[in-house]
């Protein structure tokens, strides 16, 4: 990704400043420095790199600096594994960043543009992590439309904020505070996440109006209107589930897909609104919250508090293991066997070898 950023510069197609730092920790520290001066910052990372910059993620979010970053979702060591899953992002789910997940190359590109608009909204002012599945999205070819500069500029005007250093009115940023102020600083962040829910939807709708491509904001329902069984997925897996839904629908099965696009803030209200809509709902997780189970499943279960639907938490696709059409069919089949009111208290590992 950064290689492409360098290419644009080498080809004379861009005029940004390009910093090559020695580590991810310094990358995010530099992005923080850039943002504190009032400029836009972008970086990209993945897996161990995200872990290495972890400390700076909280600095950026707590300081309310709207940095945008793409994270190529990959597994975490040990065992050392370079392939795709969501362990990296899920380990950072509480770092105070807005976290969006893209389904395709085109959505990833569009999401970065949207991310700046969301991040820089004066009532939001939170950094945004655009998550793109490692390998399945980052290392495959996908024809994308790169929008015209003028259109992007119209959608995303130049940015200004009071939350920056200023020669006329010098200030201290990233202040230290005691117990007498810390709580309120955190409440302000929480409130910004609540505001961000509507902003993410609005930014997506505005994008659709201008570029002709919209993605549903925080959530996209696919074939859910009359569905009895729904699978929840995030990232590149969504595309495969979409195909399986089409196939099963053609065979007369009432199945649907729920794509989580915004993981932070979490679309709690959506899940509350569908808590009696389906006979059973399954959640696909590509990470484990050890000692609990699937990470996304835990969130969905919590948001569905009081629901009488059957609920199943599936864990698969860890460390780059393929998520096949058959596996998705198998999960839909399991949902059909799931009685109302039952939920899986242990993760159901799909495609395990032993």
């Amino acid at each position, binding site marked *: 990704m950064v290689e492409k950023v360098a290419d644009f510069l080498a080809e004379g197609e861009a005029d940004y400043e390009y910093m090559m730092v*020695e580590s991810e920790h310094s990358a*995010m520290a530099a992005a923080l*420095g850039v943002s504190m001066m009032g400029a836009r910052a972008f970086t990209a990372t993945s897996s161990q790199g995200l872990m290495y910059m972890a400390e700076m993620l909280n600095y950026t979010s707590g300081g309310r600096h709207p940095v945008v970053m793409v994270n190529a979702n990959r597994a975490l060591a040990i065992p050392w594994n370079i392939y795709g899953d969501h362990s990296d992002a899920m380990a950072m789910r509480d770092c105070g960043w807005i976290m969006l997940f893209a389904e395709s190359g085109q959505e990833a590109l569009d999401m970065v543009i949207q991310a700046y608009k969301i991040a820089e909204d004066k009532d939001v002012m939170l950094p945004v992590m655009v998550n793109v599945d490692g390998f399945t999205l980052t290392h495959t070819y996908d024809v994308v439309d790169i929008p015209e500069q003028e259109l992007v500029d119209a959608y995303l005007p130049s940015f200004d904020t009071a939350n920056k250093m200023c020669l006329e009115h010098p200030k*201290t940023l990233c202040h230290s505070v005691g117990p007498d102020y810390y709580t309120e600083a955190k409440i302000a962040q929480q409130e910004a996440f609540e505001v961000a829910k509507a902003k993410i939807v609005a930014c997506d709708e505005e994008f659709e109006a201008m570029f002709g491509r919209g993605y549903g904001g925080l959530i996209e329902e696919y074939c859910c209107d009359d569905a009895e069984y729904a699978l929840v997925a995030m990232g590149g897996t969504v595309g495969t589930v979409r195909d399986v839904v089409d196939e099963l629908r053609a065979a007369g099965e009432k199945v649907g897909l729920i794509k989580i696009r915004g993981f932070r803030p979490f679309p709690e209200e959506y899940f509350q609104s569908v808590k009696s809509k389906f006979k059973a709902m399954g959640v696909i997780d590509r990470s484990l919250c050890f000692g609990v189970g699937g990470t996304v499943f835990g969130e969905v279960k919590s948001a569905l508090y009081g629901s009488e639907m059957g609920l199943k938490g599936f864990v698969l696709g860890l460390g780059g293991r393929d998520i096949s059409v058959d596996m998705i069919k198998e999960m839909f089949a399991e949902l059909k066997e799931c009685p109302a009111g039952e939920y899986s208290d242990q993760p159901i590992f799909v495609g395990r070898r032993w």
Partner: protein
Amino acid sequence: MAINFRTLPDQELLYGARTCQGCGAVMAGRMALKVLGEKTFVATPACCFAATTSVFPQSALFVNNAVTAFAASAATGSGMSVAAKKLGFGDDVQIMVISGDGGTVDIGLQALSGAAERNDNIIYLCYDNEAYMNTGVQRSGSTAYNAWTTTTPVGPASKGEKTKFKKSLFEIMAAHRVPYVATTSVSHPRDFMEKMEKAKAMKGCKVIHVFAPCPTGWGHEVDLTVEMGKQAVETGLWYLAEYENDTFKLNYRPKELKDIAPYLKVQKRFAHLNDADIAEMQEIRDQEWERLKKVFRLED
């Protein structure tokens, strides 16, 4: 570049800090800002300097300032510097990173190495009080041999810090071929401020390592901070030097290195040392000075 004390501005850009009495670090910050002026942007990691100047809702700094993470000060300063250039803040603004010895020679060294390699336009000021003072006097890679700290305690089986040499930030940074590296001391304000002035006039990554005694951590009287700095230089336990244009220069050479015992004996961190220990330290000092003479190409 000569400093004229009569024409230095009266304006103070750092005052009201909640430091301990006799703090060398805040002296360094105050003098540095006197030279750099109000168009300075400061980045400082979690350290004594940040903890005593930047606790909301107060600030002892009257310039733009940001507290950043321990390992991140140089990189944060780099980002600020690159953005300042791109946004057209002008050639007369300064980005100063001010960080302690632990935040520089230990946890912050990697980020500083990166900033030096890129030659980002910053002044990196390391105030050296020879331990992690902010967190409670834990040893760092810059702690003096045999010094008591809370992590190198003294007991029947321990005489304090075991490493015989402070990590040489001066030579490490010179090896990066940055335009300017200097060592100085808060006890030598002219030397210090002239070096700041020189750094201010240069572009690129300038690194200044300032010796900053700490009464709280060292256990000397609060009115001896300047005296400790002077004695460190006169005994050859610290030195005032510069690196630029591939050349190492010692700015001040004592006629003869003074006995180190008086310096050690007024500091509680060395109170456990006997005459033999002190003799060994003096021997190490002599060997180190012989080595430095080669670095600075000095005649005997």
